[in-house]
Each structure stands twice: as structure tokens, then as C-alpha cells.
């Protein structure tokens, strides 16, 4: 009974949070609802007994959505509504509907044809984290390593793109030598 109550409670909460994230025009509401929805999803993992995935869901998405907050802080005044430029609402509606339908079809295809079977049944006496580790480092070793290499590539790319002039500290530069003041000086001269 408790599981049913918890499931329906968190189902309603998750759906309403993601609805707010999609429907609102306030950047702060959208981000907060997104973070809350992501954290509420972890409840389903806990209900299913997948404690490890639940904790990982919380850890990963608090960090990920926090990065979005940082962008929101930079690009918007988050206390005001964002005025969107809608050129043709019908096109957006149609494209959005098509994309949603396509995603549902992609995910539903293997379920409909019954192609998903549990190849690695749950082992008795093995904890949650250990079970995940066993599958990750036997059957899914190659995808796991490929994903790791991709993350490494992304990290190195990020460092190279953002790392110009990283060896000089902007705080320690003299006032007239800093790149910011050079620009203003040039503007003043021209």
C-alpha cells in the first residue's frame, strides 16, 4: 500500500514539475521545476529497490541543473519573464508534436516487439552497487569505456577552448595592462 501511495504521489509531483518546466516563461521557475522533477524521479528508483541508481540520479542531476542555473544567471534577468520571439507558432507546434511522436516510437519499438529480455538476472546476496558494477564491467565494458573516452575528449576540448591566457591572472595584472582596460582605452581613443 505504501508503495502505491508513494508511486502516485511522486508520479503526480514529477509530471507537474516537468509541466511547469515546459509551460512557464520564467527562467527561474523553469530551472527550479526541472531540478525538482529530476530529484523526484529518484524516488521511483528507491521504490523499485535500485538504491544505487536513485542516489546517482540525485547526485548527477543536482550538479547538472546547477550548471544550467549558472548559464541562466549569465544570460537572463531571472526575476523577470523571458519574452520569447515566436515567428510561427503553428510550425513550432507541428515540429514539437512530430519530435515527441518520433521519440515515443523509438522507445516503444523494442517493447512492442518484445526484444527486451533480462539477460543478467538479479543475483542473490549481492548488493545494489556490486550488481551494477558486475554488469558494467562485463557485458557493458566497451560502451562504458567509450563513454569515458568521450567525456575525456569533451573535457580536453573545453579546457582548450576556455584556456587561452590561463597562465596570466586577471586579478594580478596592472590596471592599464588588463585586456578589459585596453579595450576601453581603444574605444576612448577612437
Amino acid at each position, binding site marked *: 500500500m505504501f508503495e502505491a501511495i508513494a508511486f502516485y504521489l511522486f508520479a503526480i509531483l514529477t509530471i507537474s514539475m516537468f509541466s511547469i518546466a515546459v509551460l512557464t516563461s520564467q527562467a*527561474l*521557475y523553469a530551472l527550479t521545476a526541472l531540478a525538482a522533477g529530476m530529484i523526484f524521479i529518484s524516488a521511483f528508483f528507491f521504490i523499485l529497490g535500485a*538504491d544505487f541508481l536513485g*542516489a546517482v540520479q*540525485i547526485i548527477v542531476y*543536482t*550538479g547538472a541543473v546547477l550548471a544550467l542555473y549558472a548559464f541562466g544567471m549569465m544570460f537572463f534577468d*531571472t526575476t523577470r519573464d523571458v519574452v520569447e520571439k515566436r515567428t510561427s507558432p503553428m510550425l513550432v507546434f507541428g515540429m514539437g508534436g512530430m519530435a515527441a511522436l518520433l521519440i515515443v516510437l523509438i522507445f516503444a519499438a523494442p517493447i512492442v516487439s518484445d526484444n527486451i529480455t533480462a539477460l543478467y538476472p538479479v543475483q542473490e546476496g549481492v548488493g545494489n552497487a556490486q550488481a551494477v558494477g558486475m554488469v558494467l564491467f562485463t557485458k557493458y565494458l566497451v560502451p562504458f569505456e567509450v563513454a569515458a573516452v568521450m567525456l575525456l575528449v569533451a573535457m580536453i576540448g573545453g579546457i582548450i577552448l576556455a584556456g587561452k591566457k590561463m597562465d596570466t591572472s586577471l586579478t594580478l595584472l596592472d590596471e592599464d595592462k588588463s585586456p578589459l582596460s585596453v579595450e576601453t582605452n581603444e574605444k576612448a581613443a577612437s
Partner: protein
Amino acid sequence: MDTAYFIETIIKIVVLLLVFSALAGFGTYFERKVLAFMQRRLGPMHVGPYGLLQIAADGIKLFTKEDIVPQNVVGPIFKIAPVITAATAFMAAAAIPFMPSFTIFGYEVHPIISDINVGILYILGVMAIGLYGPLLGGMASANKWSLISAARAASVFISYEVVSGLSLLAPIMMVGSLSLIDFNNYQTGGVGSWMIWSQPVAFILFLIAAFAETGRTPFHLIANDHEIIDGFGTEYSGMRWGLFFIGEYANMFFISFVIALIFLGGFGDGSVGGALALLGKVSFIFFFFLWTRAAWPDVRPDQLMWLCWKVLMPIAVINIVITGIVIMF
């Protein structure tokens, strides 16, 4: 799921809430007294003997003060932000074993609300959500100081998470479990078997990360009174401001429990002496938080990021590699 278990859990949750909300109040008193002692002052003295009733006076003030929601703030977010900080601190405590299990009226009580087998991951994850309080409060406040504080909260978050996670990985590899009870049982062989002797580097790294996580003084940059007024708390008044503080002090107590359980032997073999020793360890770590506040200056946000990413993270990774090599051979 029988009724006895249900009632027991409810009682445990209520006791935990009451005890640690009260302790958060006492924490402010201890902090003022310890700081006063270290700065050769007297601290609160006027209300009651040695100022002990100061907590009650502060409580009355916080509860009865007018709750002001200023103009131009984003109302719902502004109101929910302090609740996030306080609530997540107590949610994290669900996986902490506060004492060894004991028998009362023939009924065995386990003083842990839920012994999930990924305890440490859960505690770290949920405690991390607590930083959403300062972030949301700062962003919703329509105040430039608060916005700076929110930006600093984001930078603190991306800095310390890596260090706390990586530094705990080496002890987790040695114990082979993520449950805090297993950590405690690993160290039952007296002082010599404490994790701090086999993992001193991880202990220091996790202690530093704990300071950043709770926002205590070397890393108090989110709410630096002398630079950005009170940061995210500038626009808050009354009990909403008080909730931020209950969350902060409860977090300090809970992280002290976690440090004591992981590195300092926890409650040992589960006797009464072990339970008292755990309380002693927790009190010392709490005192250490206050001691550091009296002795150290604050660092800048960029210094914190430099420290976490360029110094502590490589040390943590090297520690993991060495631990792995030692375990393997």
C-alpha cells in the same frame, strides 16, 4: 510492512527533527561562546546564567518577527529556498546511524531511520541539494549582493563535490561497502583500527570538503558578511532567515557524525562507552569547526576553485591509485 515498524519509523523521525532543531539552537550559543573565548571576550552573558537563555530569546525573536517578502522578488522561489536548506539537511540524516542499536522494554531499536546499502552516496547527494537554498534564495531576491552570493554558491558547489567524492572513494574501496554501519563494523578493533591511520590523506581532504559543504569559515564566501552583507540572506527576515541557520547548523552536526563514523571509529563495538565516545568525537569535530572560524581568514572564490581543482583533486586521485595498488598486492 507491519504497523510496529511504521510507528517506530515515525517516532524516530520526530525525535531526530526535535533533537537536531534544538541542537541547531544550542549550536549558535556554543559558537558565540567559543568565538568569544578565543577572542578574549565574554560572549552572551545577560539573558540567564552565563547567557544560557539567549537561545530562547533568539527563538522568540525569530518566531515572532514580521515575515517580509520584498517587492520584485520571485515570490514562490523566495519562500521555498530556506525550506530546501533545512529540509535536505534532515533528509540526509535518514541514513546516518546515530548510536549503536539498543533494547528498550524488550524491543530492539536501531537508531537509523533507513539503513539503505548506499548510505554515503545518499548522504552526500542529499546534502549537496542543500546548496540550492542559497542559490535559489540569492537568485530570487532581486538584490545584487544576493546574486553575487548565488554565483558563489554555484562555484562552491562545482568545486567541493569532486573533492568530497574522490576522497571518500579510497575508504570505500578498503571497506567494500557504502553503508555507514559497515564502515563502523570495519573499525571495531579499537583506536588502532580507525580509518584515519590507514587513510590520513583522505581524512584531511574530506575534512576540507566538509568545510566547503557546510560553508564554514575558510570557505564562508557564500554569505560573507564583510563583503556582500549577508549574501543570500540579505532580503530575508524572521523565521525564513532562521531556517537557513537551522539547516546550516544541522548540516554541521550531521557531517560531524559522518566524519566520526567513516574515519574515527564511529560507535565502535556498540557498547554504552562506544556510544558516548561517538558523541565525544562529534562534539570535538563540531568544536573544530568553531575553532577554525576563530583562527583562519576567509578565502576568495577563485582561491577556493584553485585549491579544489588544482591541489586537492590531484592529491585525491593519487591517493586512490596508491590505495588500489596496495589493495591489489
